[in-house]
C-alpha cells in the first residue's frame, strides 16, 4: 500500500531515530513526567492489582459474548433515535461516511480524537473529495498541520518542542513566534472555535460502548469532543466493535483506570456518555447521530482465543510509555495506527501477519508492558506467540536452511567437535573482517563485540584436569 515495505521502513526509521539524541531526550522527559504523575494515582487505589483483575474479568465477559452485547447496544441505541451502522472493513466505513456527508449536503467536518479514522485513512479521502476536515484535539491538530499521523495514540505530538510548534503555527496560521505553551494553546483555541461554529458534521470516536443503555462514552481533557458532540447538527461516531462494556456502572471502574494508566490523572477532565441525538425535551445537540460499528479484521483477532484478550485494550497507551523499545525508536517508526507493544500484537491480525511480523521482534520481552496494562493483557507472551505463528505460517528460506544445518551439526558429535575447534583457530582472523560485508555475523558485529570463545572446551578441560 504505502511505498516502502513495512519492514524496510521500520528498520530505516528505527535506526535513524534511536541514534537521534535530541529525540530520545524529549521522549525521556515526557515519559518521566508520565511516570511521576501516574505513580501516586495508582497508589491511591485501594488495590490496583485487584482492580486490574476485575477489569479483565469484565472485559473477558464482554468480548466472549460480543455478539450478544453488540445486539443489546444496537437495540437500546436505536430505541432512542440513534442510527447504528455496521462496517466490515475500511471501504465500507468510508462509503457510509461519504454517503452521510452527501445526504446532508455537508461541506465541513470537525473531528475530535478518533483513532479508528486513522485506521481507515479518512482525512486523506475527505480532503480528496473536497471536504474541509479539521482535527480539534490540540495534539492531533498540530499533527494535521504537519501532515503527519499521530506519534503516540494518547500523546499525538509528544515528539515536538514548543519552538517547532510555534514555527508550525507561524507558517500555517501566520501567528507571531511564542514559546509559551499557554499562548500556543490559545492560538489553537481561537482558530478552532471558528471551525466549530461553522462545521456541519461532528465526528468522534468512543472509548466505550455501553450495551445496557445504548450509549457511548468519550474520555478527554480538552473539551473538544464535548463541543464536537454539541454544536454541529449531525454527529457521526466511528467505533471499533471491541469497545463494549456490558453495564453503564462498569465505567465506575474503567474511567478512573483509563485516566490513571493513560495520563496519570484520577479522572480525566471530561468523561461524557452520549445516549442518542437531541431528545424531544432538550435544547441542543445534533439532530441526527450515526454510530458506525467497525470490524476491520477485529474478528480475526477474536478468532484466536490465545490472543483474544488483546481486544480488551482500552487504549490507555501505558504499554508504550514503559516500553524500552518505544522509548528509543519513538512512535512513527512502527508505521502503524497503534504503536508500541499493543500495536505490535494487534497490527499483524488487522493488517497481515507476514507484513507486520517484524514488530514482534522489536521487543526485549521484558514484560513491562504486561505489568503496566490496566486490563492485564498478556502482551509480551503474545509477542512471543506472534513470532511462533509467523514462522509456522511461512517456513523455509535461508533461515530455515540454517536451522536445519545447525540441528544436523549439533546431533553429530564429530562434526560439532571439529567445528568448535575450527572456530577457535579461525577466531583471531575474525577481527579483520568484523562488521564488514564479508562477516557472516555482520548483523550482530556491526554494532557489538562477539563474546570471546574460551581457550578450551569444557570436555577438554574435564579430560585434562589433574587429580
Amino acid at each position: 500500500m504505502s511505498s516502502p515495505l513495512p519492514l524496510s521502513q521500520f528498520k530505516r526509521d528505527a535506526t535513524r531515530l534511536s541514534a537521534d539524541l535530541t529525540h530520545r531526550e524529549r521522549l525521556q522527559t515526557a515519559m518521566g513526567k508520565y511516570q511521576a504523575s501516574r505513580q501516586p494515582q495508582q497508589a491511591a487505589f485501594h488495590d490496583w492489582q485487584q482492580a486490574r483483575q476485575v477489569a479483565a474479568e469484565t472485559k473477558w465477559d464482554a468480548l466472549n459474548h460480543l455478539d450478544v452485547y453488540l445486539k443489546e447496544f444496537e437495540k437500546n441505541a436505536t430505541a432512542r433515535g440513534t442510527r447504528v451502522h455496521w462496517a466490515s472493513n475500511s471501504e465500507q466505513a468510508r462509503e457510509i461516511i461519504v454517503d452521510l456527508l452527501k445526504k446532508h449536503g455537508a461541506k465541513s467536518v470537525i473531528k475530535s480524537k478518533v483513532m479508528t479514522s486513522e485506521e481507515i485513512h479518512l482525512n486523506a479521502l475527505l480532503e480528496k473529495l473536497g471536504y474541509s476536515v479539521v482535527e480539534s484535539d490540540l495534539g492531533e491538530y498540530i499533527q494535521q498541520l504537519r501532515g503527519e499521523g499521530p506519534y503516540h495514540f494518547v500523546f499525538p505530538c509528544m515528539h515536538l518542542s514548543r519552538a517547532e510548534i510555534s514555527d508550525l503555527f507561524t507558517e500555517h496560521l501566520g501567528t507571531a513566534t511564542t514559546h509559551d505553551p499557554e499562548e500556543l494553546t490559545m492560538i489553537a483555541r481561537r482558530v478552532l472555535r471558528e471551525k466549530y461554529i461553522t462545521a456541519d458534521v461532528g465526528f468522534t470516536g468512543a472509548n466505550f460502548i455501553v450495551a445496557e443503555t445504548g450509549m457511548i462514552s468519550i474520555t478527554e481533557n480538552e473539551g473538544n469532543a464535548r463541543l464536537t458532540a454539541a454544536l454541529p447538527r449531525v454527529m457521526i461516531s466511528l467505533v471499533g466493535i471491541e469497545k463494549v462494556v456490558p453495564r453503564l456502572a462498569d465505567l465506575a471502574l474503567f474511567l478512573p483506570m483509563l485516566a490513571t494508566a493513560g495520563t496519570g490523572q484520577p479522572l480525566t477532565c471530561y468523561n461524557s456518555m452520549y445516549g442518542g441525538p437531541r431528545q424531544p425535551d432538550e435544547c441542543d445537540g445534533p439532530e441526527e447521530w450515526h454510530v458506525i460499528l467497525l470490524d476491520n479484521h477485529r474478528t480475526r483477532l477474536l478468532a484466536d482465543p490465545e490472543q483474544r484478550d488483546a481486544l480488551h485494550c482500552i487504549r490507555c497507551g501505558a504499554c508504550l510509555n514503559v516500553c524500552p523499545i518505544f522509548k528509543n525508536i519513538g512512535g512513527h517508526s512502527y508505521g502503524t495506527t497503534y504503536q508500541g507493544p499493543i500495536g505490535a500484537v494487534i497490527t499483524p491480525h488487522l493488517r497481515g501477519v507476514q507484513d507486520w511480523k517484524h514488530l514482534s521482534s522489536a521487543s526485549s520481552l521484558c514484560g513491562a508492558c504486561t505489568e503496566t496494562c490496566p486490563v492485564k493483557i498478556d502482551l509480551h507472551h503474545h509477542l512471543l506467540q506472534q513470532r511462533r505463528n509467523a514462522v509456522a505460517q511461512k517456513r523455509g528460506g535461508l533461515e530455515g536452511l540454517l536451522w536445519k544445518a545447525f540441528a544436523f551439526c549439533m546431533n553429530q558429535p564429530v562434526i560439532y567437535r571439529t567445528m568448535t575447534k575450527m572456530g577457535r583457530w579461525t577466531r583471531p582472523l575474525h577481527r579483520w573482517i568484523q562488521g564488514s560485508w564479508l562477516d557472516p555475523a555482520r548483523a550482530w558485529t556491526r554494532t557489538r563485540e562477539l563474546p570471546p570463545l574460551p581457550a578450551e572446551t569444557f570436555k577438554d578441560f574435564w579430560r585434562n584436569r589433574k587429580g
Partner: protein
Amino acid sequence: MNTERENILGRIGEALRLTAPQPGHRDPAEPLRTAATAAREWLPVVEEQTESRWALFARKSVELKTTLVLCDSPSDATTKLLEIGRAENWQRVACHGKAAAANLAASLGLPTVNTTPSYNMAELESCDAGITECDALVAQTGSVLLTSRSGGGRALSVLPPHHIVIARRDQLVPDLPAAYAQLHATYGGRWPSLIAFITGPSRTGDIERILVLGAHGPKKLTILVVP
C-alpha cells in the same frame, strides 16, 4: 448494510466457538466479577463521615484547580457570584431554566442567554460565564456530575469560558459507583442524551506535557455550594 450486520455477527459467532482462557489464571468455575458491582472495593477509599468527604472534595478541587466556594445561604451565593462577575468584568452570562441557576443569573442584573430550545449558539458563545445546576458532586474524584437535563443542554457547561456550578450540600456522593447508582435511580429508563463527569476546568498537556487550562472548554470552573 443489513447484510454487513449479519456478516459481522456471523464472524463473531464463528470466532467465539473456541473459548478463551480466563484472565489471571482464575478458576473458571468461580462466577465472574463485574466492574459494576465490585468496583467500590478496589477504588480509592472514601471515608464514611460527611465532613471528611467534604474535606476530600475540597482537596481534590485544589489539585484540579477548581474553585470551591462554600456559601452560608442562597443570598451569600449571590454576593459571592457578584464579586466574581465584577472581578472578571462579565458583560453577559448564560443559564438554563431551572430555578437555582436562573435566579442566580438574574441576580447579576446582566443580559442573560437562557438555553431554551430556540437559543442561539453564537449568543451563547459570546457569554462570559455559563451557570448550571448539577446532579451530584463526587468526593472521590472532585467531579461534578451533570446531564443535558440538569445542566441546561450540551453546550452551556462547555462553551463559555467560565463554568459556574450551583450545588446543594446534600448533593455530595462518596464515589463513582454511588454516582452511577444515583443516575440509575434518577433517570433509569428515561436517559438524557448527555451524562458528563466534569473534573476540573478544561486542560491539555499536549505541548511538552506542560499543563495549560482552557484548551477548548472553560478556563475556569467554580462550584458554589449552598446548604
